[in-house]
């Protein structure tokens, strides 16, 4: 397998070499990176805010490709599921798109009466010189709602920068509402996007513990909740890659402490609830007892079935390639819970410390990779003879073409994988793909069956 020269240091094999992984850099020209762009990062984070208008400023593609593909649910308004775009044309490119933007925003705000509007600048807006800030300010004054520019020109960095741009936009909302009436025992849920209703599940856990949830940012998000989010007593940050910036600034600005949590897998899920309970121990009487009770009840319900799957999955090998490294930690642990070994793990946007932690977590020989591409991934899957690949839509055909089981753990998925119930879904999903009889009919499956030791 040929690994591009520029990328040699972005692949590490545990045990074989000292750890010195290169990451957080621009994709090599000509490599088929699985990464998206700054815009994608911003869109992923802000999209679930259901009562806001999301307008993509640029030519049509970026908007077309992000129209209603995500499983981010709303319990009320569905405005976010539309795709609105200024759809710039040649003349706009030459003369500038400000006028069109102004008119587009005005019409859409009048039509849909959103609580706020986000305006995403895509690549060419960054070079035709539109003053998007000024247009947003003007519309905001005219229409009386917050109109927030999101500086998400795709080429100006990576998805990570898009997360940051989204957080900057959110920070213009936070603190503009009235926090009176927010209880001392209240939290914000950050970094869960309510895929397949996950935030509803998590929210229920916290409420059963005796906490109040002020804002879910951004899963099933509402503008008014975000505006008063600064009244909460604690920020719980999942998917720390995307929302850390928001949490940090809220700490500096409003003195709200934060905790990193993950809701994937039994250990991480339980830990998140225990940590939160400990935080509120002095404020909410009985919270720790209630939490122990809650976790016990949930586990009682899911563990017997999971044990069955574990019996059949034990010793199987898995590979993981996801957007953010933080999710990968939870996945390695969750797979271990199913008796499976992670032999390859990588992410699009991990940082050095993330990869170090992953290295700690994995067994000897594991391949750790940053910003990989289909050719590398396919060769790793074959080399390590994996039974399961976890990734997103772009990784799926690589696994399937080679006759390997696959589990979608990305933003497009429609299955809840967070929480205790999610762990059960995850186990079913993994079992359902690894144990499927179809593999026997594939070239790789029949070769394996013919081989003596497996």
């Amino acid at each position, binding site marked *: 397998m*040929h690994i*591009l020269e520029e990328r040699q240091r972005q692949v590490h094999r545990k045990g074989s070499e000292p750890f010195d992984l290169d990451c957080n850099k621009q*994709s*090599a*020209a*000509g*490599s*088929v*990176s*699985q*990464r998206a*762009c*700054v815009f*994608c990062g911003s869109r992923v984070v802000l999209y679930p805010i259901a009562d806001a208008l999301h307008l993509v400023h*640029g*030519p*049509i*593609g*970026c908007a*077309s*490709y*992000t*129209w*209603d*593909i995500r499983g981010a649910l709303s319990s009320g308004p569905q405005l976010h*599921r*539309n*795709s*609105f*775009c*200024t*759809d*710039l*044309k*040649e003349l*706009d*490119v030459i003369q500038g798109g400000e006028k*069109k933007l102004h008119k*587009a925003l005005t*019409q*859409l705000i009048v*039509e849909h009466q959103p609580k706020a509007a986000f305006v995403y600048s895509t*690549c*060419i807006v960054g*070079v035709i010189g539109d003053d998007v800030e000024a247009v947003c300010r003007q519309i905001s004054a005219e229409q009386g709602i917050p109109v927030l520019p999101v500086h998400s020109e*795709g*080429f100006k960095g990576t998805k990570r920068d898009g997360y940051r741009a989204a957080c900057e936009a959110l920070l213009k909302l936070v603190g503009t509402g009235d926090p009176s009436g927010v209880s001392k025992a209240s939290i914000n849920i950050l970094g869960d996007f309510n895929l397949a209703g996950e935030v509803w599940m998590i929210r229920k856990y916290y409420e059963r513990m005796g906490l109040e949830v002020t804002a879910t940012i951004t899963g099933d998000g509402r503008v008014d909740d975000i505006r008063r989010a600064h009244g909460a007593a604690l920020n719980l940050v999942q998917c720390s890659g995307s929302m850390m910036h928001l949490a940090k600034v809220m700490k500096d600005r409003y003195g709200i402490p934060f905790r990193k949590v993950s809701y994937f897998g039994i250990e991480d899920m339980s830990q998140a609830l225990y940590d939160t309970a400990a935080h509120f121990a002095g404020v909410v009487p009985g919270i720790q007892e209630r939490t122990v009770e809650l976790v016990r009840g949930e586990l009682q319900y899911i563990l017997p079935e999971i044990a069955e799957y574990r019996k059949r999955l034990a010793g199987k090998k898995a590979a993981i390639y996801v957007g953010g490294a933080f999710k990968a930690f939870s996945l390695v642990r969750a797979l271990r819970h199913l008796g499976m070994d992670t032999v390859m793990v990588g992410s699009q946007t991990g940082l050095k410390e993330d990869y170090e932690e992953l290295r700690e977590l994995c067994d000897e020989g594991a391949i750790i990779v940053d910003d990989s591409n*289909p*050719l590398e991934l396919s060769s790793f899957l*074959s080399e390590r003879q994996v039974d399961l690949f976890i990734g997103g*839509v*772009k990784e799926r*055909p*690589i696994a*399937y*073409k*080679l*006759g390997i089981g696959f589990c979608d753990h990305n933003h497009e998925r429609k299955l809840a994988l967070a929480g205790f119930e999610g762990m059960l879904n995850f186990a079913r999903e993994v079992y359902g793909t690894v144990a499927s009889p179809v593999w026997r009919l594939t*070239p*790789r499956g029949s070769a394996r069956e013919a081989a003596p030791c497996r």
Partner: protein
Amino acid sequence: MPVAEPFVSTRNPCKACSPLGACLAFRGIEGAVPFLHGSQGCATYIRRYLISHFREPMDVAASSFSESSTVFGGGDKLRRGLDNVSRQYQPRMIGIATTCLVETIGEDVKMLLNDYHPAAEPAPDLVHVSTPSYRGTHVDGFHAAVRAVVGQLAEAGEPTSSVNLFPGAVSPADLRHLKEIASAFSLDVAILPDYSDTLDGAQLEEYRKIPEGGTPLASIRAMGRAAVSIEFGRTLEGSATGAAELERKFGIARKTLGWPVGVVESDRFFSELSAISGRPVPQIFVRERGRLVDSYVDAHKYVFGKRAIVYGEEDLVVGLAAFLSEIGIQPVLCASGGQSGRLEAAVAAVTASSVGPVLARGNLDFAAVRELALEMKPDFMIGGSKGYSIARELDIPLIRVGFPIHDRIGGQRILHLGYRGAQQLFDAVTNTLLARAQDRSPVGYSYL
């Protein structure tokens, strides 16, 4: 009531962007790798969109512009990108399309490529197509790429008796059927592009860097010597296509036909082949046509007078409109996000036999389709999966055809073309209507 001003924004697009079409076309050439010069994100989105339809690996390389490339130009990125792709994939051709960013900064890609000295041995053919999305849709990008390929690779020489066929963005199943038809006529037909294998391939034990299949480069070079070019797409008439390019450069006759959807449009195609080959239509297709018309008769009452909304790329819409009209279904709305300006005339030309008025509109988005649909009392919709929310709101069935189909499997296996394709469409439409009536009936007969 004052007439509302049209929305200047696009609300729920009925189109994708130009480089997507170019990537799709390049994927149908043997040994080719699609390459986007410009931003990385576009390539990834395009891949995801195509993968979700075809459910096959779809690698698109990108030169990955950074901020400095927009200031100092992307020449260096382009050269390094091409070298890296050559090293990793050993392609025989690299199809280079551009994203909006590169077009906007006015990069002279042609000049950059002229100055580029490939490190790889043997050097791959480089085909460049300019695909600014602010000028056209994915379908325009598709045709532009096909035109660039023949324009840059086809060669003059000793004339042959072979036929060039430019089918447009049809399905892999359609491409397979076209090949079968060509061989039944004993014609030597070069189909461009041909992603019937590259985007609908078998399981592999070893990953292939570039999937097997596609139009061979040798066939493309020989297109400059063919006897005739056939292209599908009534809205292409008069526009700069691959066939037009071959006519201009090599004087090869260009025949523009509609997508052969339904009996009447298929008849035109078959008789064209018959004329070219000097052979009668092979028996197998004569019988297929016979069975098809027989089924039309058997089921005509179930479908008569039903109202359909048709949407998607312009030439598929024209084909479907022709098909629906000939079976007695009224295509009340024929909508497309396409911008050729020729949709209305093309639909009118094929729906003369329609049982009622037909409205054709190009340059529409789904929000506009929805607003029109609410008034039209359609019985069903037919098109890609992006119309689902409207069908759901209207509580009518959606029959999935064309591209993209992101909410069902098998989009690549839908056959639209020829008598056989019409048979499948006809059965699907009729049975959908029957099922709906049966499900809604208070009685629920199991005998119709």
